[in-house]
Protein backbone atom coordinates (compact mmCIF):
# COMPACT_ATOMS: atom_id res chain seq x y z
CA UNK A 1 0.00 0.00 0.00
CA UNK A 2 1.29 3.41 -0.93
CA UNK A 3 1.73 6.03 1.75
CA UNK A 4 0.05 9.42 1.83
CA UNK A 5 2.31 12.30 2.83
CA UNK A 6 0.94 15.14 4.92
CA UNK A 7 1.90 18.73 4.12
CA UNK A 8 4.55 18.87 6.85
CA UNK A 9 6.34 15.92 5.30
CA UNK A 10 5.80 17.17 1.75
CA UNK A 11 7.29 20.54 2.65
CA UNK A 12 10.28 18.95 4.37
CA UNK A 13 10.95 16.77 1.34
CA UNK A 14 10.64 19.66 -1.11
CA UNK A 15 12.84 21.96 1.01
CA UNK A 16 15.40 19.21 1.45
CA UNK A 17 15.75 18.79 -2.31
CA UNK A 18 15.83 22.44 -3.37
CA UNK A 19 18.12 23.54 -0.53
CA UNK A 20 20.82 21.32 -2.06
CA UNK A 21 21.01 23.82 -4.93
CA UNK A 22 22.45 26.47 -2.59
CA UNK A 23 25.37 24.30 -1.42
CA UNK A 24 28.65 25.90 -2.49
CA UNK A 25 27.02 29.09 -3.82
CA UNK A 26 24.38 29.88 -6.40
CA UNK A 27 23.33 26.81 -8.37
CA UNK A 28 22.66 26.57 -12.08
CA UNK A 29 20.26 24.97 -14.49
CA UNK A 30 21.77 23.76 -17.73
CA UNK A 31 19.65 23.17 -20.81
CA UNK A 32 21.12 20.35 -22.89
CA UNK A 33 20.74 18.82 -26.31
CA UNK A 34 20.73 15.37 -24.71
CA UNK A 35 20.85 14.12 -21.15
CA UNK A 36 24.12 14.55 -19.27
CA UNK A 37 25.09 14.96 -15.64
CA UNK A 38 28.31 16.75 -16.64
CA UNK A 39 28.02 20.53 -16.57
CA UNK A 40 29.53 21.50 -19.92
CA UNK A 41 28.52 18.40 -21.88
CA UNK A 42 25.78 18.98 -24.48
CA UNK A 43 25.16 22.44 -23.02
CA UNK A 44 22.77 24.69 -24.93
CA UNK A 45 22.29 27.42 -22.29
CA UNK A 46 22.93 27.86 -18.57
CA UNK A 47 20.94 29.99 -16.14
CA UNK A 48 21.86 30.86 -12.56
CA UNK A 49 19.62 30.58 -9.51
CA UNK A 50 19.52 33.19 -6.76
CA UNK A 51 21.91 32.53 -3.85
CA UNK A 52 18.87 31.16 -2.01
CA UNK A 53 17.30 29.39 -4.94
CA UNK A 54 13.88 28.59 -3.46
CA UNK A 55 11.66 29.90 -0.70
CA UNK A 56 10.15 27.64 1.95
CA UNK A 57 7.70 25.15 0.50
CA UNK A 58 3.97 25.41 1.16
CA UNK A 59 1.49 22.59 0.54
CA UNK A 60 4.39 20.59 -0.86
CA UNK A 61 5.28 23.21 -3.47
CA UNK A 62 8.63 25.05 -3.49
CA UNK A 63 8.81 28.09 -5.78
CA UNK A 64 12.08 29.46 -7.12
CA UNK A 65 13.32 32.97 -6.52
CA UNK A 66 14.48 35.00 -9.51
CA UNK A 67 16.63 33.12 -12.02
CA UNK A 68 19.27 35.04 -13.96
CA UNK A 69 18.81 34.72 -17.72
CA UNK A 70 21.50 33.40 -20.04
CA UNK A 71 21.95 36.37 -22.37
CA UNK A 72 24.43 34.64 -24.65
CA UNK A 73 23.38 31.05 -25.12
CA UNK A 74 25.78 28.45 -26.49
CA UNK A 75 23.01 27.36 -28.84
CA UNK A 76 21.52 24.07 -29.99
CA UNK A 77 18.28 22.13 -29.62
CA UNK A 78 17.19 21.83 -25.99
CA UNK A 79 15.77 18.42 -25.08
CA UNK A 80 16.94 17.88 -21.51
CA UNK A 81 18.12 19.80 -18.48
CA UNK A 82 20.21 19.22 -15.39
CA UNK A 83 20.17 21.18 -12.14
CA UNK A 84 23.56 21.66 -10.44
CA UNK A 85 24.40 22.87 -6.95
CA UNK A 86 26.73 25.81 -6.47
CA UNK A 87 29.45 23.23 -5.88
CA UNK A 88 28.80 21.72 -9.30
CA UNK A 89 27.08 18.56 -8.13
CA UNK A 90 24.35 17.28 -10.45
CA UNK A 91 21.11 17.07 -8.45
CA UNK A 92 18.45 16.02 -10.95
CA UNK A 93 17.69 15.99 -14.63
CA UNK A 94 14.55 16.04 -16.71
CA UNK A 95 12.98 16.86 -20.04
CA UNK A 96 12.57 20.03 -22.09
CA UNK A 97 9.85 20.48 -24.71
CA UNK A 98 8.14 23.26 -26.60
CA UNK A 99 4.87 24.61 -25.23
CA UNK A 100 2.28 21.92 -24.43
CA UNK A 101 4.87 19.20 -25.00
CA UNK A 102 4.61 18.02 -21.43
CA UNK A 103 8.26 18.48 -20.44
CA UNK A 104 9.35 19.58 -17.00
CA UNK A 105 10.48 22.73 -18.75
CA UNK A 106 8.40 24.16 -21.58
CA UNK A 107 10.15 26.67 -23.83
CA UNK A 108 8.67 29.04 -26.38
CA UNK A 109 11.11 27.40 -28.80
CA UNK A 110 13.52 24.52 -28.29
CA UNK A 111 15.72 25.80 -31.12
CA UNK A 112 18.16 28.12 -29.38
CA UNK A 113 20.60 30.10 -31.47
CA UNK A 114 24.12 31.17 -30.57
CA UNK A 115 23.83 34.38 -28.56
CA UNK A 116 20.09 34.03 -27.88
CA UNK A 117 18.64 34.98 -24.50
CA UNK A 118 16.91 32.34 -22.39
CA UNK A 119 14.68 33.59 -19.55
CA UNK A 120 12.82 31.43 -17.04
CA UNK A 121 9.84 32.02 -14.80
CA UNK A 122 7.48 30.14 -12.53
CA UNK A 123 9.83 27.33 -11.51
CA UNK A 124 8.12 25.05 -9.04
CA UNK A 125 9.04 21.72 -7.49
CA UNK A 126 6.12 19.76 -6.07
CA UNK A 127 6.19 16.77 -3.76
CA UNK A 128 2.77 15.13 -4.17
CA UNK A 129 0.90 13.58 -1.27
CA UNK A 130 0.94 10.16 -2.92
Amino acid at each position, binding site marked *: *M*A*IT*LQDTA*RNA*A*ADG*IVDLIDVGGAGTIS*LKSSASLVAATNEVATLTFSATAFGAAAAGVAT*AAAITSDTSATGGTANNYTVFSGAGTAL*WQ*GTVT*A*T*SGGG*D*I*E*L*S*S*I*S*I*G*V*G*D*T*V*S*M*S*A*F*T*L*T*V*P*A*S
Partner: protein
Amino acid sequence: MTNPTPAKPKVKMFGLIRDKYGKPKIDGDPNDLHPELKKMLSNEEKLELGIE
Protein backbone atom coordinates in the same frame (compact mmCIF):
# COMPACT_ATOMS: atom_id res chain seq x y z
CA MET B 1 4.65 -6.50 3.87
CA THR B 2 4.33 -4.24 0.86
CA ASN B 3 6.93 -1.50 0.58
CA PRO B 4 5.48 2.00 0.59
CA THR B 5 5.75 3.78 -2.74
CA PRO B 6 7.49 7.13 -2.42
CA ALA B 7 5.83 10.10 -4.06
CA LYS B 8 7.95 11.38 -6.94
CA PRO B 9 8.63 15.12 -7.01
CA LYS B 10 7.42 17.00 -10.06
CA VAL B 11 9.03 20.05 -11.63
CA LYS B 12 7.42 22.67 -13.86
CA MET B 13 9.07 25.69 -15.39
CA PHE B 14 8.59 27.92 -18.42
CA GLY B 15 11.20 29.64 -20.54
CA LEU B 16 11.10 32.33 -23.20
CA ILE B 17 13.73 32.43 -25.94
CA ARG B 18 14.72 35.69 -27.60
CA ASP B 19 17.07 36.00 -30.54
CA LYS B 20 20.16 38.20 -30.41
CA TYR B 21 18.00 41.15 -31.49
CA GLY B 22 15.56 40.63 -28.64
CA LYS B 23 12.75 39.23 -30.77
CA PRO B 24 10.76 36.35 -29.17
CA LYS B 25 11.26 32.93 -30.77
CA ILE B 26 8.06 30.89 -30.72
CA ASP B 27 7.43 27.43 -32.15
CA GLY B 28 3.86 27.06 -33.41
CA ASP B 29 0.89 29.31 -32.80
CA PRO B 30 1.70 32.11 -30.32
CA ASN B 31 -1.86 31.84 -28.99
CA ASP B 32 -1.02 28.35 -27.75
CA LEU B 33 1.73 29.64 -25.46
CA HIS B 34 1.29 28.84 -21.79
CA PRO B 35 -0.05 31.83 -19.81
CA GLU B 36 3.25 32.01 -17.91
CA LEU B 37 5.07 32.55 -21.21
CA LYS B 38 2.55 35.11 -22.40
CA LYS B 39 3.21 37.05 -19.21
CA MET B 40 6.86 37.36 -20.24
CA LEU B 41 5.94 39.23 -23.43
CA SER B 42 5.35 42.97 -23.62
CA ASN B 43 1.98 44.30 -24.73
CA GLU B 44 3.58 45.43 -28.00
CA GLU B 45 4.96 41.95 -28.63
CA LYS B 46 1.59 40.34 -27.91
CA LEU B 47 -0.05 42.72 -30.37
CA GLU B 48 2.58 42.01 -33.01
CA LEU B 49 2.21 38.26 -32.54
CA GLY B 50 -1.57 38.42 -32.65
CA ILE B 51 -1.96 37.03 -29.15
CA GLU B 52 -5.46 37.52 -27.85
